[in-house]
């Protein structure tokens, strides 16, 4: 029982990071209807910004940890906006497939540039946040896990507030529902899309810092697997739906942790995809997504 709860907790904290990343995929999919493959590398960029930031900040203090995270979020938001502006905007009217390939190109560009300029060897991520273990009964809760869960929860609430309580959030929902109608009523689509990228990328940046704090070896390809998993999480929850992405991330993180702790551990990566396939076959719109019926 204790072991079960412990694994559940580990799963939730891994899932929270997937959730942060998955929301970025879902946001972009909501407004542009394509898989932003470069998102995983924005996540990587966030971790590297954190690494450089960590060189100037005292370690083991919550203040400097949060400051570095803020830096990473701003940095990745700018990066996301730049990617959107230079790579995706020229393709606004092109078929989805072309945008998809461009996204793959951007992803490769970031990875190879990372390998060139940061080096391919893993680096040790500085301990930004103070680390302590708390014992609750027989359960060990680390401060890192609390941090991941807490930051994720705060960011998701913040995001929901932006989307449902502000003008620009309303505009985002309008663009996602029908871009043409939105522009007819005076929404500046390009600005909204740019803002969406900024939001999603900032979440990825925060995710990068949290991930690197928990798994402190960072390298330019670190985003690939979490990125794929997070995308699976987004689809699992129903792509385009933010609560869905959060739920999908949690489910995936928990399942993966349990599989990883069992005798099937070597098949952990395949398991995520197996879930995806089962979900898509039996409920293609995901757990919380809406079904789109194709009309002639």
């Amino acid at each position: 029982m204790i072991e079960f709860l412990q694994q559940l907790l580990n799963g939730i904290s891994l899932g929270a990071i997937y959730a942060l990343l998955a929301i970025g995929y879902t946001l972009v999919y909501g407004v542009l209807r394509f898989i932003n493959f470069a998102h995983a590398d924005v996540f990587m960029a966030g971790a590297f910004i954190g690494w450089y930031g960590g060189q100037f900040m005292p370690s083991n203090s919550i203040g400097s940890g949060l400051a570095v995270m803020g830096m990473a979020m701003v940095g990745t938001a700018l990066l996301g906006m730049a990617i959107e502006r230079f790579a995706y905007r020229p393709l606004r009217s092109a078929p989805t497939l072309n945008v998809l390939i461009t996204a793959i190109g951007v992803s490769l560009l970031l990875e190879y540039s990372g390998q060139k300029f940061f080096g391919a060897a893993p680096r040790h991520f500085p301990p930004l946040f103070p680390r302590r273990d708390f014992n609750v009964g027989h359960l060990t809760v680390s401060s890192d896990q609390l941090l991941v869960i807490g930051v994720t929860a705060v960011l998701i609430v913040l995001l929901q507030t932006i989307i449902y309580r502000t003008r620009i959030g309303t505009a985002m929902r309008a663009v996602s529902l029908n871009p043409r109608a939105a522009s007819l009523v005076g929404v500046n689509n390009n600005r909204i899309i740019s803002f969406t990228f900024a939001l999603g990328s900032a979440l990825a940046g925060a995710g990068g810092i949290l991930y690197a704090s928990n798994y402190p070896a960072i390298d330019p390809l670190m985003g690939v697997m979490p990125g794929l998993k997070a995308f699976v999480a987004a689809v699992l929850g129903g792509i385009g739906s933010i609560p869905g992405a959060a739920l999908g991330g949690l489910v995936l993180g928990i399942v993966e942790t349990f599989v990883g702790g069992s005798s099937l551990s070597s098949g952990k990566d395949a398991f995520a995809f197996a879930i995806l396939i089962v979900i898509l076959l039996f409920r293609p719109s995901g757990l919380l997504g809406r079904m789109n019926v194709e009309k002639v």
Partner: protein
Amino acid sequence: MEPRPRFLLPAPHWALLGGLALSGAAMAAAPSIDPYYLEILTNIGINVILAVSLNLVNGYTGQFSLGHAGFMSVGAYVSAALTLFVAPHWPTPLIFFVALLAGGVVAALAGFLVGMPSLRLRGDYLALVTLGFGEIIRVIFQNIDSLGGALGLNGLPPDTNIFWVGAWVAATIFVVVCLVHSTYGRGFLAVRDDEIAAAAIGLNTTRYKIIAFVVGAFFAGVAGGLYGHDKLTISPAGFDFTKSIEIVVMVILGGMGNTLGVVAAAIILTVLPEVLRPVADYRMILYSLILIVLMIVRPDGLFRIRRRTS
């Protein structure tokens, strides 16, 4: 519907024979060719097989698959297992041919198993499921200890030569062109152009999709076998998602559903990293930049021969 121009080959059978003859000639000339160029030629051939076969699925039938490397790995492992374990003492060309065929057939079977359930989906979802299956196939190989696990198989016999590669290139192009330009094969284009309309006039769209998938997987499997017996070592990591993307990029740059263009793109994309070798440090960065810029300035591929009707 106005008749499509026979843009590729006036007589595919002649081209097939010509391709075989050319492969034989290349084989005869091989000893006098610089091994470096021979290796590049082999790589080009393997990539052409992969790209042309994927083009049947992605380009002609319009089903976006991201799992081609998975089928390639099935073929590579099956053929390697045959040449390594089952019949090392058979006469080489025969066992190699049988091994390639077996690799292709098992890959086709895998294509059937993957295609059956997943072809109900479309667009991004299909892309994702095929990606998932590709990754699952990779993880399965990683966990089969008798096939070397994560380290893969080493010491494959060096059976791949320029003749086999050339012959399979000719066969792949022949089959894909003949299939698509047959009366039956019009169905592939119909499924791509408008699936609902195709179903409405009585085409069994699922069957078309699965046939495209199976044929594509077969040739991917053969290419895997050729690849394994050229590199002499195979490991699961060599057939990951990046490899699938590489093949997809060839198809897109060549122009979806344009065999000649796809062949040219496969050649260019194989040679490009070699040409960029002097700027080795930056070549992959340049490669990805070129990819992005090309998508923006030539969204229909490098060689748009005809305007798509849709």
